[in-house]
C-alpha cells in the first residue's frame, strides 16, 4: 500500500503561542460544546419539558389551591408569579452544577481527557474556564427557554423581567464554579457527586424559600437558605419580577454573597485543576 508522507513545516512555524495563551479557554469550551452537541435533541427536549412539568404541576395545580385559600395570593401576587423566579433559578443552578461537575470526573478520572488537553499548550486554568464556559452556554440556552415558558404561562410580565436571565446566570455560575473546584479537589469524587445531589442540591431546592417565603420557616432551617445561592437569586429575582420588597442593604448583601462565591469558586477551581494535573 502506498502511503504518502506527512507534509511538514514544523510547529515552530505554524503555532502562535500568544494566541493560545489568549484563547485557550475558548478552545476547551469549543471541544466541550462539540461533545454536548451530540446530545442536542435531548438537551432541547429537557429544556422544554422541564418548565412544562413544573409549571403545570406545581405552578398551576398547587397554585390553584394556594390562591383559593389566600385572597391576595402569596407576597401580594399570584402563586405562579411568586414561584417563577425561584423555579428559574433552581433549574439553572442545578443544571449548571451538573454540567460543571460531571466533566470534571470524566476529565480527571474516567477518560483522563484533561491530561490530554494539558499535554498541549492549554493550562489547567484554561481547562477550568473552558469547561465552565461550555456549561454556562448550555445553561444560558436552558434559561432562555425556561424564561420563555414562564412568559407564555403568564408567570412573568414586562420587559424588565428579562433581567431575570442575567441574574439567574450569575447565581448559577457562582455555585457551579465553586462546586467544580471542590469536585476537582476531592479524590473519591463519584461518591461526592451523589452526595452533592442528594444532600446539597435537594435540600437547597426545598429550603431556599422556593415554594414559600423563607421567613415562614423555623430559624434553624432558614440558615440553609441564607447559605444557598438559590435563596439569594430568588430574593433578587422576586424584586426584579414583581417588586417584592427588599432593602438596599439586603440587595447589596445578596449580590455580594454571589460575587464572593464566584471569586472564591474560581480561586478554588484554578488551584485544584493545576494541582491535580501536575500529580
Amino acid at each position, binding site marked *: 500500500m502506498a502511503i504518502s*508522507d*506527512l507534509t511538514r513545516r514544523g510547529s515552530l512555524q505554524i503555532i502562535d503561542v500568544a494566541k493560545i495563551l489568549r484563547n485557550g479557554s475558548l478552545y476547551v469550551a*469549543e471541544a466541550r460544546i462539540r461533545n454536548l452537541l451530540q446530545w442536542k435533541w435531548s438537551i432541547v427536549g429537557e429544556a422544554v419539558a422541564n418548565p412544562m412539568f413544573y409549571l403545570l404541576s406545581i405552578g398551576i395545580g398547587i397554585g390553584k389551591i394556594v390562591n383559593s385559600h389566600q385572597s391576595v395570593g402569596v407576597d401580594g401576587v399570584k402563586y405562579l408569579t411568586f414561584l417563577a423566579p425561584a423555579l428559574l433559578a433552581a433549574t439553572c443552578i442545578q443544571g449548571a452544577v451538573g454540567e460543571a461537575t460531571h466533566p470534571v470526573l470524566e476529565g480527571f478520572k474516567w477518560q483522563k481527557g484533561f491530561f490530554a488537553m494539558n499535554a498541549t499548550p492549554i493550562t489547567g486554568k484554561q481547562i477550568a474556564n473552558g469547561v465552565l464556559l461550555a456549561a454556562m452556554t448550555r445553561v444560558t440556552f436552558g434559561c432562555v427557554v425556561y424564561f420563555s415558558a414562564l412568559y407564555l404561562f403568564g408567570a412573568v410580565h414586562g420587559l424588565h423581567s428579562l433581567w431575570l436571565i442575567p441574574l439567574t446566570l450569575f447565581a448559577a455560575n457562582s455555585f457551579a464554579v465553586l462546586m467544580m473546584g471542590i469536585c476537582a479537589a476531592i479524590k473519591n469524587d463519584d461518591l461526592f457527586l451523589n452526595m452533592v445531589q442528594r444532600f446539597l442540591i435537594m435540600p437547597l431546592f426545598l429550603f431556599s424559600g422556593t415554594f414559600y417565603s423563607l421567613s415562614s420557616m423555623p430559624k434553624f432551617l432558614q440558615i440553609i437558605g441564607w447559605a444557598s445561592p438559590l435563596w439569594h437569586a430568588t430574593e433578587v429575582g422576586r424584586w426584579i419580577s414583581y417588586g417584592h420588597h427588599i432593602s438596599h442593604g439586603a440587595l447589596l448583601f445578596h449580590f455580594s454573597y454571589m460575587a464572593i462565591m464566584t471569586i472564591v469558586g474560581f480561586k478554588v477551581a484554578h488551584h485544584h485543576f493545576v494541582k491535580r494535573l501536575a500529580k
Partner: protein
Amino acid sequence: MSTIGPAAGGKEPLIIARGLRKEYGDFTAVDGIDFQVNRGDSFGFLGPNGAGKSTTMRIIAATLTRSGGDITILGKDPEVRGPEIRAHLGVVPQQDNLDNSLTVEDNLYVYGRYFGLSKKFIHGKIEELLAFAQLEEKRGVKVEALSGGMKRRLTIARALVSEPEILMLDEPTTGLDPQARHILWDRLFRLKEQGVTLLITTHYMDEAEQLCDRLMVMDKGRIMAEDSPANLIKTYSTKEVLEVRFGSDRNAQFADQLRSMCDRIEVLPDRVLMYSDDCETLLHNVVSKGMQPTTSLVRRSSLEDVFLRLTGRSLVE
C-alpha cells in the same frame, strides 16, 4: 557517560538535563540524571517498570515539576514556560486518553484546536493523518469502537496534528499484538526517516533496537549506560549467548563448572546464560565435559543481556 556540552556533531540540542531529580516523599523516582537530546535524534529510555522513564518523560513534557537539577527543552525552563514548550511537543501517553464519545476525525480536530490551529489547516491535516495512521475508513467511527492498535495509531496521529518538533512516546506498543506492533513500528520509522525527533520509553528491547539511535538504560531512577544499541551490546556483552537448560534443580548445581568455561554466566531460574564470542565451540565443550543440557540455544547478544549485566535483573519481570 553523557554528552552534555556543545552540540555533539554540530547538531542542535533540543533537550538538556543536568542532575535532574524527582522525589515523591521518601521515594526517589529520578535520581540526578544527565542527558541531552539533539534535533533529529531517535532517543530511547530503556528500563523496567518503575525505572523512572515515565517520570522523566512527564518532566520533559512540562506537566510535572522537578524536585531538583536543571532541564531546558528548546532552550526553555518547563516550570516557567510550560505552554510555550508544550506547543512544540507531540505527546503519546502510556494510556490512550482519546475522547471516546467523539469520532476519529473529531478527536483530531479538537486536539488541533488546542494548538490554536485554523479549521482549514486542521481539515487538510486530518486527511494526511488518517492516511498515515491507516484509519481513513474509520474517520466517522466513534473511538470506543476501535481496536487497541487503531486507538494507539490514532493517539500518535493526534500527537502529530501540530507538526511537533519532538514526538514523545511512552511505551508506544505495550499491550498490542505482534501485528499491530509491527504496523506501529513502521509508522514510527517513517517519522524518523523524515527527521522528526523521537523520544521513546520502552521495556521492550526489540522496540528499542528497531527505533532508537541512542539509548539510555535506566534502573531505579539512575542512568546505567548510554550509547547506540550496537555499542551497548559491544561494550556490555559478548557477540553471542548460549542458553542452556538442565532442569531447574541442576542449573545452579552446574553453575561453578560452567562459569570457568566462558567470559561470564547468568543463572536464571529456568536456564543458564553463557557469554562468549564463539558459542558453538562453547556448547561443544559443555557437552564434552559430560554436562548434557535438555535444551540449548545459541543466539546473538541483545539489549536484554546488556540490561542483565548492568542491573543483574531482567527487563520484563
